């Protein structure tokens, strides 16, 4: 019992440190994991072997594999090429530019890391807007909001999806049949809403459309040979994801194999490639897994699940909708990864007590995914575009985000809730 309380205390203190940003999240997860593992050894409820086994290598392998592919694609200029191309095709027409840049960003963030996508596309976006003589804010915000929204569609689109898929046993195809349709409707709603919210900015006719027509996308593409090879490998990996069930392989295996094949084919400077990978995310995940494993071993989750048994009295559809809004509300203010990692064992516990938790997993996917749109700090992509905008004439402020981003979050969550309730049997 004392073990449970102490483990819970360590977890809560770590969570508070992460959420209040008193200590870097990766450092917190390492010290928290060490503390729970040490407690487990002293009170003998959590062995070193169990702590290691708690790390979900399926999640980490999938992220590492995809990150390696992105790290190789990044220096080729391919993503910049598409952004410049989108600018040209729009012929300087504001609404067309919004749709084109938004679509390019979304398609990439469905398969690649949102942050990398935004980091590469946003500077080109600012450039195009500067050349046109228009305010870049609508485009930058649209990119962050649409990439967060698009990321919800696939298993590999967003880290919470990877975590949930691994815990719930969802395949790549499960996401295509359950999440993608909802995201399509939510994405169109978000785009339409952005068009409306920024109607004033988008109605201004850019003074200088000729200059945009002189942009040369091909000159932004530095290394087509490498880009082509990585895109081929990426396409094969996505194809393999479709067949992960008949092939009996895990997404992590596919992603790591794809990364290895691409490395052999391209043979980049491996130090450069590895430097581009965000190792802090992987270490952060590892630490959180060890902490949650410790909570489980200390019996904390059983206590929690006992307390949650009254949830049985709530109609399941409502429970799911409440879950979407609760998780979204939390994700708007804090990182959705710790929230997801903390909720996974709770849902597993509810499942073990006999509840049908399949629909709740999907509610978690939608809440964690769409919630990040709510505030300027809700997702890393938001933070990135906001900090990039500080290097322009018109920085994005938190107040502006609340006026233009928060409605998008509310609209996408509403769409998700309605579709979830209407088609509830499909999520069971």
């Amino acid at each position, binding site marked *: 019992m004392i073990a449970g309380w102490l483990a819970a205390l360590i977890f809560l203190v770590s969570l508070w440190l992460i959420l209040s940003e008193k200590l870097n999240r990766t450092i917190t997860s390492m010290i928290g994991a060490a503390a729970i593992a040490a407690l487990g050894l002293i009170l003998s409820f959590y062995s070193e072997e169990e702590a290691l086994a708690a790390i979900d290598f399926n999640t980490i392998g999938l992220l590492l594999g995809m990150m390696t592919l992105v790290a190789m694609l990044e220096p080729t200029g391919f993503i*910049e090429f598409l952004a410049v191309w989108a600018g040209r095709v729009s012929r300087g027409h504001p609404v067309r530019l919004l749709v084109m840049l938004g679509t390019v960003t979304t398609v990439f963030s469905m398969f690649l890391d949102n942050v990398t996508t935004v980091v590469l596309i946003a*500077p080109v976006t600012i*450039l195009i807007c500067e050349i046109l*003589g228009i305010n870049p804010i609508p485009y930058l915000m649209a990119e962050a909001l649409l990439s967060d929204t698009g990321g919800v569609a696939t298993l590999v689109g967003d880290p919470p999806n990877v975590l949930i898929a691994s815990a719930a046993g969802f395949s790549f195809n499960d996401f295509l049949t359950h999440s993608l349709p909802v995201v399509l409707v939510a994405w169109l709603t978000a785009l339409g809403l952005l068009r409306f919210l920024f109607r004033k900015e988008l109605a201004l006719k850019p003074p200088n459309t000729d*200059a945009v027509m002189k942009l040369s996308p091909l000159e932004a593409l*530095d290394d087509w040979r490498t880009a082509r090879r990585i895109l081929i490998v990426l396409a094969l990996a996505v194809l393999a994801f479709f067949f992960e069930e008949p092939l009996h392989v895990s997404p992590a295996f596919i992603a790591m194999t794809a990364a290895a094949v691409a490395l052999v084919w391209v043979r980049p400077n491996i130090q450069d490639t590895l430097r581009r990978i965000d190792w802090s995310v992987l270490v952060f995940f590892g630490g959180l897994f060890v902490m949650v494993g410790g909570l489980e071993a200390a019996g904390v989750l059983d206590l929690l699940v006992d307390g949650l048994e009254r949830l049985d009295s709530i109609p399941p559809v409502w429970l799911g909708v409440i879950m979407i809004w609760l998780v979204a509300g939390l994700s708007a203010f804090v990182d959705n990864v710790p929230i997801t990692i903390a909720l996974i064992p709770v849902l597993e516990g509810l499942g073990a007590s006999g509840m049908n938790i399949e629909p709740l997993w999907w509610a978690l996917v939608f809440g964690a995914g769409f919630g990040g749109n709510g505030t300027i700090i809700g997702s890393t992509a938001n933070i990135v575009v906001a900090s990039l905008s500080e*290097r322009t004439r018109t920085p994005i402020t938190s107040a502006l985000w609340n006026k233009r981003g928060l409605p998008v979050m509310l609209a996408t969550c509403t769409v998700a809730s309605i579709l979830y309730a209407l088609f509830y049997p499909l999520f069971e």
Partner: protein
Amino acid sequence: MLIRDCMKQNVRSVPDTATIRQAAALFVKYHIGMLPVLSSAGGLVGVVGLRDLLTLELPDFFELLPELDFVHDFGAVETTRPTPQQLDQPVVTKMHPATFVLETDGLLKAYALMLKHRLHDLPVVSSSGQLVGVASRVDIGTAILAEWQSVGGESA
């Protein structure tokens, strides 16, 4: 040779109470790349460079782009001007801490500092902290090369 032997002693500077507009006028009048910012007591409080002021026209997001080959026409960027409000801001908002040398420092130390911080002009101060001169990359570089003349040739 010491830095004080090659520096320019006739130094243009700007008081820390000046506006960006006033500083810009000095850059234009004297055709210079860097202005030391002085307190009312004459102490060096920082420097402001041409680049610092030009970020008002060309925001520094350009540095985030890996290259610019694909941009053939800068369009509206070419004709954008700072707003009157921006020009009436105090110059200290664009100032950065000065990298400086003492008048008794050697030439190579000064040159190394310039390379390290990618500077073109270096303020020179006395031991009491008063600005006594400015040395440019060309002043320092040619002073170093001048000493080569006294190196004896093989055939000599």
